[in-house]
C-alpha cells in the first residue's frame, strides 16, 4: 500500500504568520489506505500543516498536490469537494445548534425544497451508534459534555465521504474506551482505502495505529519513516531533540501535614452528593473517576463556581460559598479543564490573559504594566510557552501552548491550594514532564495540590493519595502502594469485591 502514489502531498511548503515563519520547506504525503501520524512538540506546526492540507490556510510558499496535480483551494469548501475532511483540534461546532444540525451543517439532506429531518436524524443516530455515543441527535451541543462534543465532531467528519481524513488530536479529550471506538473506525476507513492523517501527543496510540510517522520540530520535518521500528522512546527523542528520562518525579515519602482544606458533606445539586474529604499541607491529592463522575463539578462547587450545600473550610476558616474571589483570597484556586470556553480569552493578548486572575497583585491604583510584562517574561520562561511573538492573541497560540499559558495564569495567583483539572490535555510529552516536575516542586514548597486527571498513569505517578469518585459520590480513597490501576478501576466502577486494604486506608 505504501508504494501507492500519494493522494495529497505538500511540496516544500512554508508558512508565515506576519513576519514569523512557522513552517519551513515541509514535504509531506498521504496515501490511500495508510494512517500517517504527524507528531511534534507543542507549537511545532502540526495543526498549521493540517490546515494547509485541508484548505483552511494558504501556504506562503510551496505547492499542494492533489493526485499529483498542483491545486489551490479557494476555501475549505474546495477541499471538501475534493473529499478532504478535517477534524479540528479546537471544537468546531455551533454551540446553539443541535447535534444533528451540526453533523449535517452545510450538507443538509433535502426532500424537495425542505429538509429531510427524519433522514438526518436517523443517519445521525446511526453515526453516533457506530461511535457508541449516547447523545440524542436533538440535544443542543452547548448542553453536552466535552468528550461527547468530540464524538459529534468525529461523527460529522465520518458523515462526509472522505478520501482524506485529517484528525488533529482527536483523542485529547476522549477516554480510552472512546478512543478504542475511534480506532475501530480508523481501522475500517483504512481498509476502505481512505488516507488518514493523525496527530496525538499520546505516543502509545501513535505506535499502535500509525503506518508511517513524520516528526516536526520547530516547523522542520526531522524524520519521516514507516512506523515499524520506531519505538515510543525514539519518537519522543526525535520530537524533543534529546533523550527522555523518567516521566514522573520520584514519589516523596513524607508525613502528612495539617489539613488545609476540609470539605464536608458538600452537595452540588444534581451532580455531586455529600462529598467529604481533606487535603493536607504539602500534599498531592489525586482525583480519579470515570468521565461524568462529577469531579469537575465538585471542584467548581468548592471554589464557588456552582451552588452548593455543605461546608468548605480553608485553614480551619469556613469559606464563603459562591464567590470565586473569596476562594482566591483564601489561597484556593481552580484550573479549569475547559481552556477554550472557561480558561482563556482567546481574542486577548497573552499578557491580559496571564494577569486576569491575579490582577489585584499588579494593581496599585493603576495597573503596573511593567510588572505585567515581567510576569509574562517569567511565565514564558518558566512554562516554556512557545510563541512566535509576545503580542499575539492567546487564541493564536498552538493548543498545547494555550494550556501552558492557562497553567501560568493560575499559578500567578500564587495559591496555597491549587486544584488542577486535566492539565495535560494536548500537551507534548516533554512538556508533560515539566508540568509534573512543577507540581512536584509546588508540593515540596509546602503548597497543596489536587490533581484531577482521566489519565490514570498520571494520577498514579504523581499522587500520594487518590480519591475515587463514582456517579457524583466519593467511592473511596487509596494511599501508598494501594494506588494502582486495578484498585482505582474497581472503585470507579463500583465493583463489589473492593480490596479489603481499602478499609484500612
Amino acid at each position, binding site marked *: 500500500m505504501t508504494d501507492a502514489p500519494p493522494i495529497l502531498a505538500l511540496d516544500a511548503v512554508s508558512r508565515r504568520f506576519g513576519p514569523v515563519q512557522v513552517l519551513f520547506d515541509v514535504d509531506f504525503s498521504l496515501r490511500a489506505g495508510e494512517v500517517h501520524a504527524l507528531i511534534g512538540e507543542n507549537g511545532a506546526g502540526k495543526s498549521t500543516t493540517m490546515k494547509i492540507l485541508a484548505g483552511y490556510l494558504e501556504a506562503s510558499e510551496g505547492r499542494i498536490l492533489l493526485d499529483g496535480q498542483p491545486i489551490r483551494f479557494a476555501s*475549505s469548501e474546495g477541499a471538501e469537494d475534493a473529499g478532504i475532511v478535517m477534524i479540528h483540534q479546537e471544537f468546531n*461546532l455551533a454551540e446553539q445548534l443541535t447535534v444533528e444540525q451540526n453533523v449535517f451543517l452545510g450538507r443538509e439532506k433535502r426532500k424537495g425544497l425542505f429538509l429531510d429531518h427524519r433522514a438526518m436524524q436517523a443517519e445521525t443516530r446511526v453515526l453516533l451508534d457506530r461511535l457508541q455515543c449516547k447523545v440524542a441527535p436533538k440535544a443542543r451541543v452547548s448542553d453536552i459534555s466535552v468528550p461527547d462534543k468530540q464524538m459529534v465532531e468525529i461523527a460529522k467528519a465520518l458523515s462526509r465521504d472522505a478520501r482524506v481524513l485529517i484528525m488533529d488530536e482527536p483523542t485529547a479529550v476522549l477516554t480510552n*474506551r472512546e478512543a478504542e471506538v475511534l480506532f475501530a473506525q480508523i481501522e475500517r476507513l483504512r481498509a476502505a482505502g481512505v488516507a488518514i492523517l493523525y496527530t496525538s501527543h499520546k505516543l502509545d496510540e501513535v505506535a499502535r495505529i500509525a503506518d508511517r510517522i513524520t516528526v516536526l520540530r520547530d516547523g522542520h520535518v526531522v524524520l519521516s519513516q514507516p512506523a515499524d521500528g520506531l519505538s515510543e522512546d525514539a519518537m519522543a527523542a526525535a520530537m524533543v531533540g534529546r533523550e527522555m528520562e523518567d516521566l514522573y518525579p520520584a514519589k516523596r515519602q513524607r508525613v502528612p501535614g495539617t489539613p488545609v482544606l476540609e470539605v464536608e458533606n458538600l452537595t452540588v445539586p444534581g451532580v455531586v452528593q455529600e462529598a467529604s474529604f481533606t487535603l493536607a499541607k504539602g500534599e498531592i491529592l489525586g482525583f480519579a473517576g470515570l468521565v461524568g463522575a462529577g469531579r469537575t463539578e465538585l471542584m467548581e462547587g468548592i471554589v464557588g463556581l456552582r451552588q452548593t450545600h455543605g461546608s468548605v473550610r480553608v485553614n480551619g476558616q469556613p469559606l464563603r460559598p459562591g464567590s470565586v474571589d473569596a476562594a482566591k483570597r483564601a489561597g484556593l484556586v481552580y484550573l479549569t479543564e475547559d481552556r477554550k470556553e472557561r480558561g482563556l480569552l482567546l481574542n486577548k493578548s497573552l499578557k491580559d490573559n496571564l494577569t486576569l486572575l491575579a490582577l489585584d497583585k499588579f494593581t496599585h491604583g493603576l495597573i503596573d504594566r511593567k510588572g505585567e510584562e515581567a510576569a509574562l517574561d517569567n511565565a514564558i520562561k518558566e512554562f516554556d510557552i512557545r510563541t512566535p511573538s509576545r503580542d499575539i492573541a492567546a487564541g493564536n497560540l498552538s493548543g498545547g501552548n494555550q494550556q501552558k499559558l492557562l497553567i501560568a495564569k493560575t499559578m500567578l495567583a500564587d495559591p496555597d491550594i491549587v486544584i488542577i483539572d486535566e492539565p495535560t490535555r494536548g500537551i507534548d510529552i516533554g512538556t508533560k514532564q515539566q508540568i509534573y516536575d512543577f507540581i512536584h516542586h509546588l508540593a515540596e514548597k509546602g503548597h497543596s495540590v489536587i490533581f484531577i486527571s482521566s489519565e490514570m498513569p498520571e494520577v498514579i505517578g504523581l499522587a500520594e493519595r487518590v480519591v475515587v469518585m463514582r456517579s457524583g459520590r466519593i467511592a473511596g480513597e487509596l494511599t501508598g502502594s494501594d494506588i494502582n490501576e486495578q484498585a482505582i478501576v474497581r472503585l470507579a466502577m463500583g465493583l463489589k469485591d473492593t480490596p479489603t486494604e481499602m478499609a484500612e486506608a
Partner: protein
Amino acid sequence: MSVAETTGKPAGAAPRRGIDLHVLGPLVALAVLVVIGILLNPNFLSYANITNVLARSAFIGIIAVGMTFVITAGGLDLSVGSMAAFIAGLMILVMNAALPFTGVSVLTILIGVATALVAGLVAGAINGLLVTKAGIEAFIVTLGTMGIYRSLVTWLADGGTLSLDFDLRGLYRPVYYDGILGVAWPIIVFAVVALLAEIAMRHTAFGRHCAAIGSNEQVARYSAVHVDRARTATYVLLGLLVGVATIMYVPRLGSASSSTGVLWELEAIAAVIIGGTMLKGGFGRVWGTVVGVLILSLIGNILNLTDLVSPYLNGAIQGVIIILAVVLQRTKRAAR
C-alpha cells in the same frame, strides 16, 4: 492508560423541560394581556377590534419576521423604518407618474407593487453587501442607511407629504380594508409570510445556516456554508419584506412623509427579542416574533381601551409591560 467506560448518562435529555417553559413565556404574556383587555372593555373581543389590532400589526409583523432572520444570523437592521417610508414614497411617486399612461387600473397598482418589491430588494442588498463585502458593522451600516432613506423621502416629498392620486387610492384601498371570508388582507398576508418564514427557519437549509452563522461564523465557514451569501440573503429577505409591508401600508394611509415608519426598527427588534430570539444571534424563532408583535400591538390597544392613565404616561406603561413580558419569560426559564 485512562479510565475506561462512561456511565450511561442521558446527555441532552435535560434541556427539554427548560425549553418548554421558555417557549411558554411569550404565550403566557400574550394571554395575560388578552385577559386584561377583556376585563377592561367588553368590546375588546369584538370582531372589529380584533381585526383592527391584527391588521395594524401586519406592517411591523411582516418586517419583524424578516428581522428575525437577520438577527438570528448575528446581524441587525436599524434602517427598516426609514426604508419603509422611502419605499412608500417611491411607490406613490411611481404610481402617480404612471397614471397618465396606464390610468386608474390594476396595472398601475401592479407597477407600484413591483416598484416596492424591487426597491426593497435593492435596499436590502445594499445593506447586506455593505455588511458582508465591506465588512462594516451592521449597526453602523444600517444607522447610515436609516439616515439616508429618511432624508431621501423628505427630499422626494419636498418636506411635505407624498399622496397617492385620489382615484387610484379608491382602487387600491381594499387591499388594506377588505379581505376574504371576513379576514382582512393584511392579516392574511401577515399569516402567510409568517408561515412561510417559520417553515424557512425550521425546515430549510437557509434557516439552519442563519442560526449557524449567528452561533459561530467560523464554524459555519468551515462547514462549507456560504456565509456571506447567506448573510446577504437575510438582509435581502428583510428588504423584500419591508417592500411587502409597504404594499400593505400605502393603501391604508395613501401617503408617505418623513414621519412614516419612525421607530418601526426599534419596535420590530423589540418584537423579535420578546419572542425569544437572541440578539447575539444563533437562535431564532419566527412564531415567537409573531407573538412579540401581537404583544406590542395589544399594549397600545389596551391603553386606548381605558382612560385610567394620563396619555402622557402611556410610554411608561408600555415600557413596564415590555420589561415584565420578558421577566415572565426569564423567570420561567430560571425555574426549570
